[in-house]
């Protein structure tokens, strides 16, 4: 599954922080192009000068230790210079929302006692092949700087970063107390890198690889963990697409008494899963691997009694995997259903009939990810039982555009009626109606995240033939806590007018194939004061729309616009008007000679350190 709920402190949607900004309080906080002097950064290094209120300073440092939320810390750092210094000395968790917004040097200069670092790299649309490879977001410079600055570093969390085996080796060698490595949607490294981490990080408690691409270097990394008892609490490698040495894995599980979270990859058969579960009945989070028999073993595994293995694991609250599910074995999980808060069936191609006996027992379920193979009927079953549901994601088995589609507004509306506590929904479908969306806006007022993906581009309400403006309008109007919105279907400028008018808390907005004119984008840029992340593709927005956001771009983490109607000159105008903004123009196809009138991809973001020095050939910084 995606980010563990317990790491919500680091989730994108929580980000309300102003820029990491060393400017002291008697200068304007808003970097409005007046040329914030870089000399202020030198004041952050003057810690040694003696000053009168040493006692008060110590008190402050001790009190600040209790301040953990970074928004609070940022606020505290702005009170005055001594608070700024004290806060910088006591901040132990560093969050970098955009790895290019600040240089590693500046970050490590300001914060000298960091134990946990969280860095995010590529923009989200890179997940969908919109960004060419080798764009950047290299972990290298960060790990090099931290190796010198933070010898006591314990935790690293990376999302959409490019990490090499050498980076992992440097990490493993530089931090003797290293405890937690979480790599989400990362790439560039392989099993060799994992081997170094496993063997050298003797205090390792957490090694979580989530939706990352891991190169198969033929290295048996599981064997590289120390032979003695380990401190491992969490080992997640469900995304690793290579064989693991099962005997070594079993031995590892046996000598890891603290292991609570284990997510296996699809090369682990159900028989092997059974062995492991017997060894680790204390597990709370389990990724079941393939959940089917290995090829030569079909007969033997059918005799397998996995039910007792699941019954023995009384603590399981989070279940995922099922990468190649052998549905006959699904009843094995019944013993744990009643305790489940988190169930991920997003790789399990199961029908409504196969889902029902499972979901019927999942009264405590709060997070459910599923494939649309369960159809509207399956969703109705979810709505009937899962009254505590907070998050639902429905993914398409067949992500094409012009097919019938097994889920529709019917399942959607059923969910809204049954799961009133819903806070987050991601729903892929082929057909939707404004009525159903409006119903959800009324039934689920706690919605914070609303992402509806009608897969056919520009598809209208399939009953009335109208645009989907009114449905999305109702969402922004009625869901007062909404911070994240993704729109789809046929949308006119009116939808965006609603968003600008009512979406006052929206921080993240995703737009694709929508809108009629520049006004749509203007409504949003002028109307949504909290907007931080805006990603737009294939929509008819041009240079004047872009200009309408000049007052706001310094408050945003980034703006992405691809396949829109922006010209190079339009982008250049923005770059000139806002010197602290990095304006990247990216060619999406390297082999194409640059002839188009419009820019392929515009990716722009605020930065304290100007242009990055690692731009590939296909990127121009204006």
């Amino acid at each position, binding site marked *: 599954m995606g980010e563990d709920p317990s790491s919500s402190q680091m989730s994108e949607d929580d980000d309300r922080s102003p820029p990491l900004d060393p400017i002291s309080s008697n200068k304007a906080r808003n970097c409005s192009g007046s040329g914030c002097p870089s000399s202020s950064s030198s004041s952050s290094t003057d810690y040694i000068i003696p000053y009168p209120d040493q006692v008060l300073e110590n008190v402050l440092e001790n009190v600040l230790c209790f301040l953990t939320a970074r928004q609070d810390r940022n606020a505290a750092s702005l009170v005055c210079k001594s608070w700024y210094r004290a806060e910088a000395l006591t901040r132990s968790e560093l969050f970098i929302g955009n790895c290019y917004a600040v240089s590693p040097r500046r970050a490590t200069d300001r914060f000298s006692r960091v134990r946990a670092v969280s860095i995010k790299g590529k923009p989200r649309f890179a997940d969908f092949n919109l960004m060419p490879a080798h764009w950047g977001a290299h972990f290298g410079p960060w790990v090099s700087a931290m190796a010198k600055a933070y010898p006591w570093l314990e935790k690293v969390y990376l999302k959409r970063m490019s990490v090499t085996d050498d980076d992992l080796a440097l990490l493993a060698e530089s931090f003797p107390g290293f405890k937690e490595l979480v790599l989400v949607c990362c790439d560039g490294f392989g099993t060799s890198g994992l081997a170094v981490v496993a063997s050298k990080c003797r205090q390792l408690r957490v090694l979580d690889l989530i939706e990352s691409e891991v190169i198969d270097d033929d290295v048996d990394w599981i064997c590289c963990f120390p032979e003695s008892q380990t401190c491992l609490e969490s080992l997640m490698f469900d995304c690793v697409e290579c064989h693991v040495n099962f005997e070594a894995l079993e031995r590892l599980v046996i000598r890891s008494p603290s292991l609570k979270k284990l997510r296996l990859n699809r090369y682990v058969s159900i028989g092997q899963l059974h062995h492991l579960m017997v060894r680790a009945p204390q597990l709370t989070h389990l990724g079941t691997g393939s959940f089917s028999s290995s090829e030569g073993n079909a007969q033997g595994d059918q005799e397998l009694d996995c039910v007792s293995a699941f019954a023995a694991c009384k603590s399981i609250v989070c279940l995922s995997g099922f990468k190649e599910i052998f549905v006959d074995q699904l009843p094995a999980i019944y013993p744990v259903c009643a305790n489940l808060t988190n169930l991920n069936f997003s790789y399990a191609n199961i029908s409504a009939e196969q889902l029902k006996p499972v979901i019927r027992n999942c009264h405590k379920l709060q997070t459910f990810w599923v494939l649309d193979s369960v159809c509207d009927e399956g969703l109705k079953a979810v709505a009937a039982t899962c009254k505590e549901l907070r998050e639902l994601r429905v993914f398409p*088995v067949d992500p*094409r555009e012009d097919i019938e589609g097994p889920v529709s507004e019917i399942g959607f509306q059923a969910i809204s009626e049954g799961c009133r506590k819903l806070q987050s929904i991601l729903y892929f479908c082929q057909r939707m109606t404004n009525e159903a969306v409006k119903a959800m806006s009324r039934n689920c007022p706690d919605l914070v995240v609303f992402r509806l993906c009608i897969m056919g581009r520009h598809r209208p309400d399939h009953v009335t033939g109208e645009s989907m403006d009114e449905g999305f309008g109702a969402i922004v109007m009625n869901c007062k806590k909404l911070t994240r919105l993704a729109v789809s279907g046929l949308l006119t400028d009116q939808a965006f007018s609603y968003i600008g008018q009512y979406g006052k808390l929206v921080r993240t907005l995703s737009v694709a194939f929508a809108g009629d004119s520049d006004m749509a984008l203007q409504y949003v840029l002028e109307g949504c004061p909290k907007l931080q992340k805006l990603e737009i593709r294939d929509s008819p927005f041009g240079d004047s729309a872009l200009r309408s956001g000049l007052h706001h771009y310094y408050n945003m983490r980034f703006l992405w616009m691809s396949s829109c109607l922006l010209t190079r000159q339009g982008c250049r105008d923005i770059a000139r008007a806002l010197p602290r903004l990095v304006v990247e123009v990216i060619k999406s196809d390297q082999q194409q000679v640059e002839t188009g009138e419009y820019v392929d991809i515009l990716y722009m973001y605020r930065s304290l350190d100007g242009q990055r020095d690692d731009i590939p050939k296909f990127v121009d910084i204006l």
Partner: protein
Amino acid sequence: MGLQAAAHSSSSSIDSSNHPDLDDLLPKPSGSSSSSSLSHKINGGTNSRNSRRSTHTRTDLSTDLRLGLSISPSHHSDLSSTTSSPREEALVSWPPIKSILRSTLSGKSENYHHQNSSLFVKVYMEGIPIGRKLNLFAHDGYDALITTLSLMFKTTILCPDNNHVHSEKYYVLTYEDQEGDWMLVGDVPWEIFLTTVKRLKITRADRC
């Protein structure tokens, strides 16, 4: 079948993130087409492809194998006209599903792991302890194989039909057959080679 296909369809252990040299040759994994989708919006018609389309993702090997390994981005090859799957017209980048999920699901329905569609062998190079894996079925002959390996290991490998130059600068390709003997690659017809090869090794030319 071009070089691009061969290089791209090898096992996931080569991808362009490891081999910057391949950048110039591999089609870039970006699927969006700007002007065509805007004209779709304006005209209300179905999306028409433009020549800048690229359909590959690094993990989308199942497509490679099924469609005959290549749709070159810069010119519509003959292959694209003969395969008429509806996915032809679709964008790889839409709907917004992550590659990992997309390829896992499509791989399942197409029996991605079926024996007949791939033959992975290990390849080692002299002096480098870590080997790589390569799908021989993804290549149409010795030339393609040698080119792929030259790129993978960043070195010059002599073709079997060149005159053997015994020099330490160059490498040659050898393979272990079913009997455990090590032979120079290229001495038997390609199809027969595929049935007898167990693994490959790149050794220095002066050692042969």
